[in-house]
């Protein structure tokens, strides 16, 4: 995956997150599309793409959030590295297996973020386990859809092209 594509995936994820973030106020829904974008880049193209996606996405998320800039960047970079390394070492090809990686990454991300907040603020934050589980489910679902689309769309386009060709040749006859 080229850097421009990594950037495009992350930018789209941040835009989605900002557009839907108001649904997360008050704990109505819990999700992190930026994390899904980071894991997507990492699993598709390896640890380096994952790290870059994590850095870019995390920093964008921090700038938008208005908190300490670098917190999400650091955590997303580490998550991008871990998932990228895992994805290349154990070749995970199926969409549902990749969605499981997104789910696992959500738990790692949540715990790392809580730990970092604890280090910065010197108080251990309240971990809402139900919200974390909800985020795992929603993120994994969104990841599954994204991976399924990347598998299905090129194939469908190729099938469409191959269907059109014989009819054209018949017309020429």
């Amino acid at each position: 995956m080229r850097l421009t594509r990594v950037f495009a995936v992350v930018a789209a994820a941040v835009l989605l997150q900002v557009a839907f973030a108001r649904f997360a106020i008050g704990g109505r829904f819990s999700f992190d599309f930026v994390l899904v974008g980071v894991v997507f880049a990492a699993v598709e193209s390896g640890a380096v793409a994952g790290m870059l996606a994590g850095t870019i996405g995390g920093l964008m998320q921090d700038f938008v959030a208005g908190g300490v800039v670098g917190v999400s960047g650091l955590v997303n970079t580490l998550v991008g590295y871990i998932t990228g390394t895992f994805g290349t070492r154990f070749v995970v090809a199926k969409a549902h297996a990749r969605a499981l990686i997104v789910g696992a990454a959500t738990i790692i991300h949540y715990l790392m973020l809580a730990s970092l907040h604890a280090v910065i603020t010197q108080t251990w934050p309240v971990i809402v386990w139900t919200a974390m589980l909800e985020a795992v489910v929603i993120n994994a679902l969104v990841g599954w859809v994204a991976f399924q689309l990347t598998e299905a769309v090129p194939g469908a386009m190729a099938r469409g092209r191959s269907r059109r060709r014989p009819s054209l040749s018949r017309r020429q006859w």
Partner: protein
Amino acid sequence: MLPRRRTLTLLVVLCLGHVLLISSQVPSASGASALDTVALGSVSRVQSAIGGVSGGIGGFWRHYLALGGVSRENEALRGRVLELEGQLQGERARGARVDALEEALKMQRSVVAQTIAARVIAGNPVTGVMTINVDRGTADGVQPNMSVITGAGIVGRVIGNPSGHASTVQLLIDRTAAAGALVESSGAAGVVSGGFADGKLRLGLLSSAATVKEGDRVVTSGQDGIFPNGFLIGTVQAVNGTGKSREVVVAPAVNFERIDVVLIVMAKPELPKPSPTSKPPAAGGKQP
């Protein structure tokens, strides 16, 4: 693919960069750092645009496509308007009487602070941090620590350094938020704080002798110098335990899941001034 060593080097460099970036943002006494203010100012325009587009799409759907039950709702609202107009007449009459009494007693007139409406342009994308960004900033006279309300009650307060056209509002349900509170029926004072897994507030620092029962209204006391007194915070939902271990659960009056427009109270917060003894010593000086 890069060799493993180069990948690890890149990881270390990136992590080190992040750690340095985090370390550089030591929060000052006035609030957020300059980096934070610049970041908020630059992204608020984008957030505002995204919020406008998503709001426009939602508005188009609600106003032109999903019109089921609108006429019924309209009728109900007309009835409610009539009812409220009646109440308004009564309140005006009462207000006139209060004015006359204040005039007669030569009392200082009670001033109701002005408010400005602000649109919520973004929620916090970091899970667990309960802040929102609104489209009003220093250009509109917004200052740090100004309280933010809705028609239902207290929402939170402005935190950090607002940019020209955007500010960050910390919701009362955030883990670091708190407000001075009074139980309306008994007048017992305490502190309401957020950050609980159930999304409810807790009323703490309450005298063990104070009587609190379910359904009691909890309002701001004004003693924190941020929230004006008398604004509704919520109602007591449950009282668990007794004595010093008593836990008072307060259901917030504001539905934090659906905040689109808020009101910023334009009164300057009256934070307690630091006592002269707490002043840091002058450079090179010694403490007595």
